[in-house]
């Protein structure tokens, strides 16, 4: 039989539990990515002569595979006495990898703001902090938020990589079910369907959010 429904029902609870791990990993690493990315972008603007270094750093991170970065953190950090469990190492690697992408999103958002806005703020003698909080951020949000949303979805789809260091997330769980039962069809297909459903829903949410934000700026 190609698809076994009773087997499906049997493994669903196990997969659901694993899905919780995947979602946790996603949320934690995304918070890390969004925060670290913002720090990078703000440092670039606020601290002179850091632009080049940050660009190179971002390029380095984006040019090498996430999988290798996961291995690197998981295997190399212990050599320096920092032993991380697989989940922490994986989340850290994903967070740093996507921080590089997020920092570019923030940068594009800030760059997009017309120079006249900065100049007008100076002419009005606003402090740097006030300018940032009241003038720049509100204008930067509409382009930034949907772009970050897209990276959240992309990041979520990378969490199966954690299976390479045996984190018990969805993919790893599906693989173990597969090797235990010699039935791969149901577990792996279910994992695929779960990702598909989540992606489609998030894409719709992001589109709605985009419309909402754009409407608010126009008004």
């Amino acid at each position, binding site marked *: 039989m190609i698809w076994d429904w009773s087997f499906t029902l049997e493994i669903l609870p196990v997969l659901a539990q694993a899905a919780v791990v995947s979602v946790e990993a996603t949320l934690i690493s995304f918070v890390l990515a969004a925060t670290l990315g913002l720090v990078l972008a703000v440092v670039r603007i606020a601290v002179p002569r850091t632009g080049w270094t940050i660009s190179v750093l971002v390029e380095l991170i984006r040019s*090498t595979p996430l999988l290798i970065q996961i291995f690197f953190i998981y295997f190399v950090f212990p050599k320096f006495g920092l032993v991380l469990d697989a989940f922490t190492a994986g989340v850290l690697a994903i967070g740093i990898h996507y921080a590089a992408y997020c920092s570019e999103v923030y940068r594009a958002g800030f760059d997009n703001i017309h120079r006249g806005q900065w100049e007008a703020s100076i002419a009005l003698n606003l402090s740097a902090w006030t300018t940032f909080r009241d003038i720049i951020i509100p204008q930067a949000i509409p382009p930034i938020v949907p772009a970050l949303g897209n990276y959240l979805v992309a990041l979520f*789809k990378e969490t199966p990589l954690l299976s390479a260091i045996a984190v018990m997330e969805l993919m790893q769980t*599906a693989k173990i079910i597969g090797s235990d039962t010699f039935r791969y069809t149901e577990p792996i297909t279910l994992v695929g369907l779960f990702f*598909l459903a989540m992606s489609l829903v998030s894409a719709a949410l992001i589109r709605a959010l985009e419309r909402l934000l754009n409407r608010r700026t126009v008004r």
Partner: protein
Amino acid sequence: MGIGTLVAMLAAALAVIGVLATQQAYSLFLPGLLQGAVLTIEIAILGSLLAIVMGVLAALVRLYGPAPLRWLATVYVEIFRGTSALVQLFWLFFVLPQFGVTLDAFLVAVVALGLNVGAYGSEVVRGAILSVARGQWEACTALNMSRAQMLRRVILPQAFVAMIPPWGNLFIELLKSTSLVSLITLSDLAFKAQQMNQNTFKTIPIFTLVLLMYLVMSLVLTIGMRLLERRASAGLARGKAA
């Protein structure tokens, strides 16, 4: 980032590899890793070719195909963008055989990565086609050209330039994704690294070299795409710079 900086980074990366290669602790691993890198490059190139074919095909079908084909193309794009590359790889590797279709691992790698990136590529191609000014289409209609003639002679050549940078990013993503094939038994660069690491526990030299090698490949690709972009846009707007 400017092309100068990229070239400088490439030179620096190559120099570091060169220096490390003089050290016994590093040079030991180089031959094996290079062997893995060759497989990585093969998969990346074949996967990219498949991605281009699928991207263009899916975009054209979604824009101009008859309804059933259009739905099929949309389903393809949504499935491959909506699930993750590793899931697709595993599905083709573990599940497809249960339907009686067994592909060898290399083919699975090329097909999975090509289809995955092709799905993203189709959005790029579609966007670039739609971004060509409406007046260009109208001029073609006024000259009584057929849809195929318009696309081939007027629209695609102009869309091509707009497509180069996003395709460059996609090729980089594909190159990085080749590391996933190590999880389906192919001995690419990532696989060799894992294997050597397990055998020798010389983690630092191995992973440093591997990161540098991926960096070199990515930079070569990025620089190549930049040059292509420069040439293509110069071709499109000849004389503007002069």
